[in-house]
Each structure stands twice: as structure tokens, then as C-alpha cells.
């Protein structure tokens, strides 16, 4: 599609009386609606598009082409683990029997599905070193909620009622403090040391009788491994708090080191990152949680249990959902049904394809790619935030100097990258590094792609010196140039309105 042409709104294709009639069922006899009380009926039709099937399909196909995506672009978005989403996972999840299965269907008509869920729980336990896993949380932040709620339930069960502080490092992802609040806690930020590791003094000062727990990810969002993690665990545990592992960065350590072994009590996993389910332009995800022994009783509902064949005197094992009766201390239910089953199936397929051997290779090549990219970018003149450290699966470039010397910001670089055919890295996160780009190449990108990215970055640095306007004005070749966000927020235009006629 020629980018010069704007794609209209679906409503602009609409004409009264038009419609994708092949999709509509027969209208039942009018009398079928007699039972509806008059006063409760809808009087005016909603403003929905009236378009042909072709117009709808063409419209959304054209819109799709305006997006960058993994399938079309290198997408080194730090903290987001934008790796290849294998098509096999999608094919399996879209099998008609899986799609057609009702969430409340009897377990007898779901042994195939439940077997996958049970095995997924077991595999996640194995890779995290935790003792129990629940699959129902619907995204990372939802898993965080489950985790912190379990921490609270744990303290409450011990009558330790004052503990309502959650410690989060400055560099933490926004969902961490927000989750603390959602759980009725106070988020308490602690400083990070100059080397990227925790500032143990600050931590010791922060913990105390009000400490419910600490939320960490390791490697941290600074892209480095917290070397004194065992010490951190000791400090927090000694103060009576629990350790929460934000699994967004699990890709970095898969099969290499396990949160359970580092001393964490609870973890959420972003299956839509580490286990490569697609991000769908914003979701869905799946934020399975894993726990150590002491939190087992508090896991959210439901969970899949396996009753071995022998126990039941049956031929095959039987899988079933555990509910309140099985887990009376559970924090309870977090979802309408059992979780994002379709996402879980995709993650299950992905893990089965990786298998034991593939698991650690994920971490190895994700780390190799990040360190290579970091080394090469430094060679061509960029400044790493932590040059003395190993990169994990991601690393930070800071444009402080470019900003000072040429007035070129991280945002300028990001937008210019779009012109050059690369999705931008994460910008301005973590907040404590100024003018930063958080870059996560993932293990599924080839050296050639990384080299092309380095070339683009080198070109941008040249442009920063020679033609900074080029950068301030970027992007130049996309469907739109930089958007007026201030106007968007000030003159709120959030829904289409029919033009007055």
C-alpha cells in the first residue's frame, strides 16, 4: 500500500443498510422478542460500521501493513523479549477441538487439554526451581498481583499484620510499584549502586518489621546480573520479608540459573516473553506464578492436578481442576475461568519444541547476541551505561553525550531507526539512566541482522554530527511523522462521531 495514502476509518466505509450478510443468522420471527419488556429494549441502534465483508477485510489488512512487528522487522525492545513466535504454536492452539472447548466443560471432555496444562506447570517448575505453579494470571502484572497477594496472605496467616511495605529498586518496571499499590501495600524505592548492583547499605536501611517483601528481577532492568543476590536474599529474609522475582527477564537465565535456587519465594513468568507467545499488539499474555514451599497453600485458583492411574484403579491418569475445597488458603480466584488457555497452549508447544537441550541455549544465545551488539555499538562510538559489566540478554546505551554535543536525544535516535527499517529499542526506561536505550536483541536474530542494526546506528551517529535536523525530524518515511501527544491529551478525541449532515 502506498504510504502516501491514509487509510480511512472503518466508519467512513459505512452506508446504511450495507452489511456482511453472509455472516448473519436468519432473523427469527418477531414474536421471538415478545418476552422482552418494552421499557428495557434498545431504541436506537448503536453506531457500528455497516460495511461489506470485503471492505472490512481490506480495511484491516491495510491497517495491519502500517505496523512494525517481529514478522516484518527486527524489534530489539528491551525488557520485552520480542523473539520469533513460531507458527507451530499458533497452529496447535487453533485446532478446532481446543478452540471449541467450553471452560466449564466436564474434565472428562478435556483430558487432552488438561494434560498439556499439567505438563506445562511441571515444566515451569523445573525451569524456575519453584515448588508449585499456577497458570491462571493473565499477564505479567496480573502474576505480580498474585505474587504480592500471596506474600500478604503468608504474613497474614502468621498473624504478622504490620507488613505492608514492598521494596522495589529504582530501576524496577512500573508494574512493580503499581502492583504493590493494587495489593494495598506501600511501594518503597531503594537506590541502585553505581555498578548496577543493589546498594546493600540502602537495602539494609530499608528493610524492617514493616517489610512484606522485595520485588526484583535478575538480571535487573539495567541488563546486568545482580551478583550479590544471595546476600540480598539473606538481608530480606532475615528482616522477615519475602523475595519476589519479576520473571520478565527469565529469558536471560533459562536453564542457567533458577530463581528458586537464588532464594526467591515467588515468581511470575511472562510466557509472552520467555516462551514466545505473540504479543498481539498489546496482548494477550500469560503470567503464570511459581512459588517456594512456604507459599504453596496460597496459590491462586484454579490449578491442574494429576491423579495417577494407579490411584484411581484406571487405565490412564486423570487430570482435574483443583478448587477452593482443595486449597482452602488460596488467595482465591483471579480470572473468569482457568486463564489464557490459548496462550498457555502456545507456550506449552514452544517448550516442548525447545525441550531440555533447547532451554539453556535460549539464554546462551540471547546473552551472546546482547554482548555482541553491545560490543559492536561501543566500537562504533556509542556509550554503554555499564561498560565494565557483562550484558545479560539486554543492555543499556546512553546518549547523554550525544545530547550534550549535538542536542540529539534518545527519542531522535529511536525515531530515526524506524526510517532505517528497525523498530526502536525501549527508550527512557529504566528512568535512572538519562537518554537511554534499553536494547534486547533476543536469541532468534542472526548476526547479520545485528550487523545491519549496528550499521544503521553508526549512520545515525554520523547524522547526529553532520545533520542533526535529519534526526529531530525523523521519522520521514512512515505513514505519519511525530504525533502531537499534547494535543491528543488536551483535546481528547477518543471516539468517532458521525459528521453532522
Amino acid at each position: 500500500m502506498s504510504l502516501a495514502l491514509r487509510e480511512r476509518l472503518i466508519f467512513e466505509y459505512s452506508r446504511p443498510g450495507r452489511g456482511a450478510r453472509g455472516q448473519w443468522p436468519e432473523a427469527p420471527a418477531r414474536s421471538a422478542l415478545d418476552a422482552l419488556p418494552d421499557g428495557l429494549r434498545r431504541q436506537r441502534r448503536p453506531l457500528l460500521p455497516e460495511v461489506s465483508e470485503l471492505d472490512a477485510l481490506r480495511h484491516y489488512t491495510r491497517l495491519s501493513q502500517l505496523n512494525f512487528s517481529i514478522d516484518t522487522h527486527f524489534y530489539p525492545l528491551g525488557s520485552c523479549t520480542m523473539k520469533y513466535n513460531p507458527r507451530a504454536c499458533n497452529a496447535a492452539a487453533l485446532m478446532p477441538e481446543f478452540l471449541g472447548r467450553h471452560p466449564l466443560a466436564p474434565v472428562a471432555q478435556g483430558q487432552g487439554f488438561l494434560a498439556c496444562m499439567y505438563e506445562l506447570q511441571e515444566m515451569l517448575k523445573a525451569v524456575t526451581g519453584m515448588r508449585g505453579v499456577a497458570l491462571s494470571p493473565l499477564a505479567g502484572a496480573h502474576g505480580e498481583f498474585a505474587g504480592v497477594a500471596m506474600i500478604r496472605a503468608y504474613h497474614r496467616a502468621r498473624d504478622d499484620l504490620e507488613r505492608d511495605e514492598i521494596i522495589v529498586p529504582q530501576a524496577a518496571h512500573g508494574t512493580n510499584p503499581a502492583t504493590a499499590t493494587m495489593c494495598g501495600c506501600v511501594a518503597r524505592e531503594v537506590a541502585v549502586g553505581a555498578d548496577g548492583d543493589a546498594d546493600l547499605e540502602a537495602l539494609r536501611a530499608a528493610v524492617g518489621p514493616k517489610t512484606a517483601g522485595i520485588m526484583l528481577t535478575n538480571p535487573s532492568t539495567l541488563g546486568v546480573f545482580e551478583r550479590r543476590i544471595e546476600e540480598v536474599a539473606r538481608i530480606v529474609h532475615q528482616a522477615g520479608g519475602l523475595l519476589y522475582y519479576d520473571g520478565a527477564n527469565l529469558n536471560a537465565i533459562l536453564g542457567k540459573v533458577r530463581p528458586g535456587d537464588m532464594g526467591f519465594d515467588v515468581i511470575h513468568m511472562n510466557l509472552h516473553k520467555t516462551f514466545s507467545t505473540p504479543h498481539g499488539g498489546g496482548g494477550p499474555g500469560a503470567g503464570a506464578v511459581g512459588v517456594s514451599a512456604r507459599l504453596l497453600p496460597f496459590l491462586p485458583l484454579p490449578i491442574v492436578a494429576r491423579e495417577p492411574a494407579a490411584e484411581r484403579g484406571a487405565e490412564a491418569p486423570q487430570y482435574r481442576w483443583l478448587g477452593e475445597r482443595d486449597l482452602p488458603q488460596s488467595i482465591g480466584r483471579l480470572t473468569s475461568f482457568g486463564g489464557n488457555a490459548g496462550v498457555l497452549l502456545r507456550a506449552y508447544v514452544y517448550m516442548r519444541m525447545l525441550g531440555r537441550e533447547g532451554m539453556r541455549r535460549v539464554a546462551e544465545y540471547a546473552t551472546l547476541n546482547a554482548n555482541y551488539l553491545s560490543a559492536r555499538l561501543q566500537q562504533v562510538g556509542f556509550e554503554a551505561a555499564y561498560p565494565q559489566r557483562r550484558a545479560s540478554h539486554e543492555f543499556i546505551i546512553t546518549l547523554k553525550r550525544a545530547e550534550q554535543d549535538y542536542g540529539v536525544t534518545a527519542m531522535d535516535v529511536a525515531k530515526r531507526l524506524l526510517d532505517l527499517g528497525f523498530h526502536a529499542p525501549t527508550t527512557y526506561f529504566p528512568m535512572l539512566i538519562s537518554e537511554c536505550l534499553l536494547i534486547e536483541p533476543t536469541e532468534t536474530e542472526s548476526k547479520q541482522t545485528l550487523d545491519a542494526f549496528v550499521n544503521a546506528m553508526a549512520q545515525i551517529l554520523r547524522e547526529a554530527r553532520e545533520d542533526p535536523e535529519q534526526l529531530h525530524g525523523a521519522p520521514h518515511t512512515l505513514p505519519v511523522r511525530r504525533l502531537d501527544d499534547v494535543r491528543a491529551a488536551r483535546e481528547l478525541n477518543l471516539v468517532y462521531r458521525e459528521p453532522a449532515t
Partner: protein
Amino acid sequence: MPFIPHTDDDEREMLAAIGAPSIEALFDEIPPALRVQSLDELPTGLSEFEVLQLMAARARADGRPLCFLGAGAYEHHIPAAVWSTITRGEFYSAYTPYQAEASQGTLQSIYEYQSMMASLTGMQVSNASLYDGATAVAEGCLMAVRANRRSKSARILLPRSLHPHYRAVALTMALNQGLIFDTVPYARDCGHLDLDALTAHDGQDFTALVIQQPNFFGVIEEVDALTDWAHAREALVIAVVNPISLALLKPPGEWGAKGADIVVGEGQPLGCPLSSGGPYFGFMTTRMQHVRQMPGRIVGATVDVDGRPGFSLTLQAREQHIRRAKATSNICTNQGLLMMAGTLYLALMGAEGLERVAAASMARTAELVAALTVLPGVRRMFARPTFHEAVLALDRPVAPVLAALAQRGIQGGLDLADFYPELGPALLLCATETKNGADIAAYASALTEALRPARAA
């Protein structure tokens, strides 16, 4: 290494550029004691062919029974164009549209979705989806507490006829923030929320009343009177609605004199397969005055530096990545792709198609109820009008009857014994437009069979 492209040469050159002797060396900052020794609990890897064979066998084992279950998840026809379009890589494999210039496809789609949902619910603004119906109810309650400055109690009235899972999730998600939930009973004979039952709360400070329309039993509530009652007491009204039903039923924005304040619900009926419970999407709409209290992403229309129209995320100061501990919610990843499914579904159905789906579903359920209640020992539980679900009272425990139906390839509905023991043997069932006369006859004859042996015994 199914998805890793590195050749031996690549690896060697890359290590040389890094100046590291081996990949292993890149992990040298990790304390050796912590390193994983073995992953033997994990199975060995499968090829794509092997894993797809395994999955096909598992899927086959679950079969495709004739499904008369509803209870919050509904089998509707999904146009083939919906999923073939949204699984296009550009939608499927994109991240959240933070880089607006590279995400106009997703952003414009969200804007269109917001427009459709706002109009469908009769409200002014919509977010870009929440996790699911249950969490949308919970977020609605938390939002009401923020939005209703007049109330100090953080007390929410929850009908017992609200989906039991939604009640449970509201408790899990809001109790830690100190919300108080009072349960409002339903009328035993008619299944609806009786105004009389609310008088117990007269004079009390409460923040919001939740109204599910139709309620969990499929019963249509007197939403006007309920809304006016709550508004008269300076409480907000949180409407929980089935989006398909809104083709026929008065939209929450028009309930009572002033309309509901917050509207939430399960988006699944709009283009999302049943899929054992997810992914679905929760929706939320509200009035403009409350927009800054709304959780979740919102897209706004704006212009670029050249004045060209475009779309971007807006009001981000409500969100965790900007406001952190002070955000309206911790939600980050939402259910974007399912929201896309809903958008395509609504675009293809339009108002008239949606009306037909709603009317046909209502008609089918009425036919089903009529066909089953002629059987001895089977009667309608509640006298009030229903939409596309109904509760039947049986003369014996429901579980064995459902098991007998399952033997005949029929999922006959939901046994309410666990959720509403006070009802006695009660069966919640549903027939959407996907069920035809033959399907209904098959159910009736299977039920006749299922009831016979017990009768004979």
C-alpha cells in the same frame, strides 16, 4: 536449536568481537554455586511435526461435543475473516503500540474499537481492553471508589446473582485495598434483583451498586429502577453486560434517568473462541468525566508535525509505566489481539447482524426451554423474562443427568449445586444462534433417555 540462527562461524566471530573465550564466559558474573546442574525433569525437544502430531492427538481426545453451556462464555459463529486477519504477523507479532509512528495499524484499530464499544454501551469513552470479564468487574469497583468522591466507605453492593466467578475475583483483587463488598440477594421466585432487597442499604454510605444485565441466571433486571435508586443515594452504578445482548437491550448509558456510570463486561462473545476459558477480553466504558480514573490504555486521535491525522496512546499519566505506584491500575499487557477480534466481529456484524445474533440466540434458548420443560420433572426455575440463558429445576440431582448427557455427546449445561445450593437441583443452560432445531431435538431426546432409567429404577 530450532529457533536459533547462529552458525559456528557466527559464534566464533561474535565471541571475538566481544573478547570472550566462550559463551560460558558470558555468564561469569553468576555465582557458580547457583548454576543449574541438570534439567533432566524436562522432556527432550520435539520437532514441529512431532509436537503437532501430539497436539492433534490431544485435541482429538477432547472431541467436539454439542455444547449448551453458557455461564459467561458463549459459542457464537466467528466469521472466518476475523482470525485470518488478526493472525496476520503485523497484528499478531507486534508489541504494545508505544512507538506510535510504527503502530498506526494497531492504534487506529483501537480507536475504532473504542468508538464501537462506547456506542454499543451508550457511553462516551472506552479503554483498549482489560484482562477479562471478572477482572473488569474488579477494576470497575476500584475505579468507582476513586471516582465517587462523595462516598467515603469504599463499600460496594454486589448482587448474589452476579456471575459467582466475578464475585470471587472482585474479592481477591479488591480486598487488599480495603474495599467492602455487601451481597444483595435475588428474588427466589423470579431470579431478579428486587428493589425491596436493597432497602436494607437505605441510609448507608455505599460507593456503588453493581448490576449485571442479564444476570447470571439469564434473567433481565429492572435496570432503570435500580439505577435511579443508586443514583438517588449518590452511589455510582457499575453495569456488567453481555455485549451481544446490547443489540436488543437498553444500553447502560440510558439506564434510569442518568445512565450507568461505569460499564464492564466480558468481550468473549464478540469473536473470541471458547478456548477453555481464554484468551478473552474485558471491556470497560465510562463517561468522559471519569476518564482519568479509568484503568488501561486509551488511544486518542491527533495530528503529526505536518498536520496529518494519526493516533497515539493518550492519558498515559494514569498508567503504571508513567505513574508507577500512583497509577489507576497495574495493568500493562492487556488482551489486544482479542480486542482486535472483537473489532472485526463488530465491523462484520454491524448493528443489524448483532441484532440477529441476539434475537436468534434468545429464540433458540426459548425453544430449548420449551422442548425440555415438556418432560416430566423438568420446569423453569424463574418466572421473569430471560435473554439467552435460563435455569431449569430438575426433580433429581443434576450431576448424574449431565453425566448421562455427556455420554451421548451433549454438554447439557451447568449444575448450580456448588454455586447456589439454595436452589435445589438447578441447571443453567444456553442455546445460541449456533444451535438449530435438530440440535435442540437431540438434546430433548438425550434428556428423555437420561431421565428414563432413574424413573424406571
